[in-house]
């Protein structure tokens, strides 16, 4: 019989090579039991491969996978207490919805399979479709059936591979809320794979960002957003303005001074990576203001303004030609016009600081618009 270990899911030095191509490179991750964990990255970065290794559908080239204290690296897929919601749903077309949902329970000889399957269908509000075939349901409904088919088994870990990828935007938002509700209701560890940074941030307790087979950074969404550890994360998660600067010295109040194209700016000393002097000072668009209220200020010219209801997004050209994005809430204060000279300011400490030896544009063009 299948073992039912429980505990955190640990990936240690997990790698997968396809011939000479490294799809996943020495991944180290601990996914706490019962958490909603998102694996985020542009398409082709190895997310699906990682999930497939956890599910047992792909053999790792090296490394180990543990649930709690039990090493499951070489346990066969059908003996792992892990279930997957496939991106394509993969509902069995020849079975009724209820039989699809009961499939896993029946394989494990559960006498109560049908009743539990019906309950799981009710949980995703599709109890009335029990007697239908998969091709009689819409995409969104099939997605929920796939979810019911997986969670009904009460796995230790539920793997979701871009489960909302095929749904339109409105349905996506609904399902995001729905998924979170179901996760907190059943308390199973969810590993949610997505290339949509917004989806990852709104849903997950913890987000791991992957890039080209490597783990870039792991943490709560707000931490990743406020303190990205690399230009890739800074650009991939939301928008960032990266100002090339050089740290010139320590000031008081835990602040350091930096030279940004001949302008002196202040940054929180604790944000500066140790031993680095050439840096990117990163400021999120909504933390920049078009006035002199912040202690750091630069002057610039508005080159573009786009109104978006709650806020207006400006492009402002700085004296050395670099353009920054500024987002201002439409709170009644006067709006700047294109061509206008403006001040751009921000408060020291609201920035993050990155080592300038990285590619400034990493992660820039992978904003999740491409499909997996």
């Amino acid at each position, binding site marked *: 019989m*299948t073992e039912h270990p429980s505990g955190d899911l640990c990936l240690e030095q997990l790698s997968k090579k396809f011939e000479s191509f490294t799809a996943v490179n020495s991944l180290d991750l601990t996914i706490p039991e019962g958490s909603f964990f998102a694996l985020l990255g542009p398409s082709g970065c190895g997310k699906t491969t990682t999930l497939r290794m956890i599910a*047992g*559908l792909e053999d790792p080239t090296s490394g180990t996978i543990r649930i709690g204290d039990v090493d499951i690296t070489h346990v066969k897929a*059908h003996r792992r207490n892990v279930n997957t919601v496939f991106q394509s749903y993969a509902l*069995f*077309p*020849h079975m009724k919805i209820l039989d699809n949902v009961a*499939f896993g329970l029946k*394989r494990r000889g559960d006498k109560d399979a049908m009743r539990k399957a019906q309950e799981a269908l009710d949980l995703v509000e599709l109890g009335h479709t029990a007697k239908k075939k998969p091709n009689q349901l819409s995409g969104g409904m099939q997605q929920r059936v796939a979810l019911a088919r997986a969670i009904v088994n009460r796995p230790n870990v539920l793997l979701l591979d871009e489960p909302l990828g095929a749904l339109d935007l409105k349905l996506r938002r609904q399902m995001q809320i729905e998924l979170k509700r179901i996760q907190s209701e059943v308390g199973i560890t969810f590993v949610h794979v997505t290339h949509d940074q917004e989806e990852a941030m709104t849903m997950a307790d913890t987000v791991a960002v992957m890039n080209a087979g490597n783990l870039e950074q792991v943490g709560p969404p707000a931490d990743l957003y406020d303190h990205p550890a690399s230009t890739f994360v800074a650009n991939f998660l939301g928008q960032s303005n990266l100002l090339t600067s050089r740290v010139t010295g320590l000031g008081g109040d835990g602040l350091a001074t930096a030279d940004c194209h001949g302008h002196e700016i202040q940054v929180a000393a604790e944000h500066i990576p140790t031993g680095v002097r050439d840096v990117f000072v990163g400021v999120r668009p909504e933390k920049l203001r078009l006035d002199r209220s912040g202690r750091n200020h630069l002057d610039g010219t508005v080159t573009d303004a786009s109104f978006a209801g709650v806020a207006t997004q400006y492009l402002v050209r700085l004296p050395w030609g670099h353009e920054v994005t500024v987002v201002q809430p439409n709170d009644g204060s006067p709006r700047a016009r294109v061509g206008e000279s403006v001040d751009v300011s921000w408060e020291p400490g609201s920035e993050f600081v990155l080592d300038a030896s990285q590619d400034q544009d990493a992660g820039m063009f992978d904003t999740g618009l491409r499909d997996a």
Partner: protein
Amino acid sequence: MPSVGAALGGGGATAAPAQRPRRNWVPYALLLPGLLWLALFYATPMVTLGSQSLQEGNVYDGFVFTGNLSVYPQALSEYWPQLLRSLGYAATATFFGLLLAYPLAYFMAQKAGRWKNIMLILVIAPFFTSFLIRTLAWRIILSDGGVVSDFFERTGLINLLEWLTLTTGGTLLNSKFAVMAGLTYNFLPFMILPLYAALERLDPRYMEAARDLYASGWQTFRHVIWPLSLPGVVAGTLLTFIPATGDYINSRLLGNTQTVMIGQVIDSLFLRVLDYPQAAALSFILLIMIVTLVALYVRRAGTEELV
């Protein structure tokens, strides 16, 4: 009834003229060649054959239509052993054909990768040689002192065949075994190809989903692969069973007087005995039996949740 538009608009000049639905005759025209073909080469011979079975007389004085149905019970009572034997042999050949073809087709469709096309060509390759010659070749393959015969003797399998009365006198040739082996071999491609087509369409993600949902290899086959391949199984077994039942080459070339199949009987009634009414009646009996069996089979398979 006037249209709603006309009623509301008072039937004035503003109402669009009622469009006469234009009959699209193209689909019917496309049916025509096929219908003509069927009428000429299927319906006409059937009617001829039917009327022939109800004639009396002989080839020298000529046959006259008498509508005498008694030829049917006569033919049945005389040749029922050959009829049953034919069904039995065909069923056996179909069964072993399925057993051989399924794993092969599965491998070709799901695992062969770039060897797929080469394997397909190999499956079709026997068609480049005539049916007759291939069957004659089996006489050489099964002949005494040959490799196959040697193998059966050394392993003692020949004793098993003797015990099952599939062979007699210690030789493979001219036996039930040889006829059924020949039938299995000759119709194997007709089993492989539809199975291949069905298994080729089978999305491997369903198998992965089954594995993910705790199904062992056998359970994945039983609950996912097999049911999804049923259309291919039905097509393959029909394409094997139907022609095998009426076959007369294998039983003539590889069998003995105890293995005569119904096709062989009809063949000799038509061409040697020249008893046309009896031959025609037997042909009809065979036809009706096969159609009935196939109808029952397809209905049964249809309830097995065909996709």
